[in-house]
């Protein structure tokens, strides 16, 4: 068997470069498909629970499915289809129907952290991803079960 020529070395390096480019392109494509940067939203603590709005800028008329996690545990999901005229007035959405509310009751006393995620399907429903909307919200529950914004 002959020793390898310089050309074979070049072919091997070329193959490695092409594979790296393919994997890089796939990673970018997957990121954009699975975690598209089009979801916007906000949430806040109200007297009864957590309310907010969610919009998919890539599909502004779509009603986004949102999920609430408190202290890292799934609490519930909802469709953001309630009236929020302030969101469309501020230019965040094409219409006013992007609001949601998660009532919070029977939560133990103390400080908790809530996170609202937009649920996104890709790959014909094969993959589901969660994207955090806004920032995690801290809220406290007092002895009477009433909730308050912030840690205390």
């Amino acid at each position, binding site marked *: *068997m*002959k*020793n*390898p020529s310089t050309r074979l070395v070049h072919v091997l390096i070329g*193959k490695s470069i092409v*594979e790296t480019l*393919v994997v890089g392109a796939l990673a970018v494509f997957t990121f954009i498909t699975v975690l598209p940067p089009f979801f916007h939203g906000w949430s806040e603590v109200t007297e009864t629970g957590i309310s907010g709005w969610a919009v998919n800028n890539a599909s502004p008329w779509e009603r986004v499915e949102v999920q609430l996690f408190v202290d890292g545990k799934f609490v519930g999901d909802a469709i953001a289809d309630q009236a929020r005229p302030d969101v469309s007035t501020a230019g965040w959405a094409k219409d006013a129907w992007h609001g949601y509310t998660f009532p919070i009751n029977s939560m133990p006393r103390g400080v908790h952290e809530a996170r609202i995620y937009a649920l996104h399907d890709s790959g014909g429903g094969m993959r589901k991803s969660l994207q955090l909307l806004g920032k995690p919200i801290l809220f406290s529950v007092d002895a009477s079960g009433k909730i308050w914004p912030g840690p205390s």
Partner: protein
Amino acid sequence: MAGPVLASIRIMSSEIKNREITADAETGRDFAIWEILSVVSSGLLMEWVVLSFAGRSKLVGGIPVVLALGFMLYSHYDRGETLREIGFRTDNFLAACRLLLLPTALVVLLVIAVAWLTSHSILIAPWRNRFLILPLWALFQQYVLNGFINRRAQLALGKGLKSVVLVAIIFSLFHFPNPLLALLTFVGGLIWAAAYQRQPNLFALALSHALSSLILALAISPKLLEGLRVGFKYFG
């Protein structure tokens, strides 16, 4: 006066040539390892990265396979290897079959015994039409494993135990994280790599491979074999 000078020049040039030959041989051995790594990384990329990213897209999933296959074919051409040297030949088919007969028969009997002990039946899984392409699939796998990787492993480590074990480890690695398949392919890899080093015949290896795979797929519960899934698909 000129005589001793010419003689010493001749000795020096001969030493330089010898050093070049030694360096060439070392480069050839080192490069063989790079060739193995390149082909193995393509296979693992396909199993673990591309299939998980590209999902059902066979076109994208096939890119690393096409690249690896193209590289292997060019490597054979560049090193001046013939089809006969690689193992696509018939003259030693019977000799290779004789070598493989006993270990293949043992594997088949062992699988049948395990099937009988675990389920009191020999054929558990249903026949699938895809089993018809098993001989071709086995021939392709044996070509990659022995026609390329084993030959390069022999270049790098020499004939014998080291290169045989390396081939078996690589074959097993392609079947991770499926524990039973990884173990079985390690054993199969040892047998086939050792047989190839004595009688390089890919058709005989493919026959043994296809027969063992068929018996395994028909006799062992798909649950135990985790549906023969490997790589990222194992989890899905």
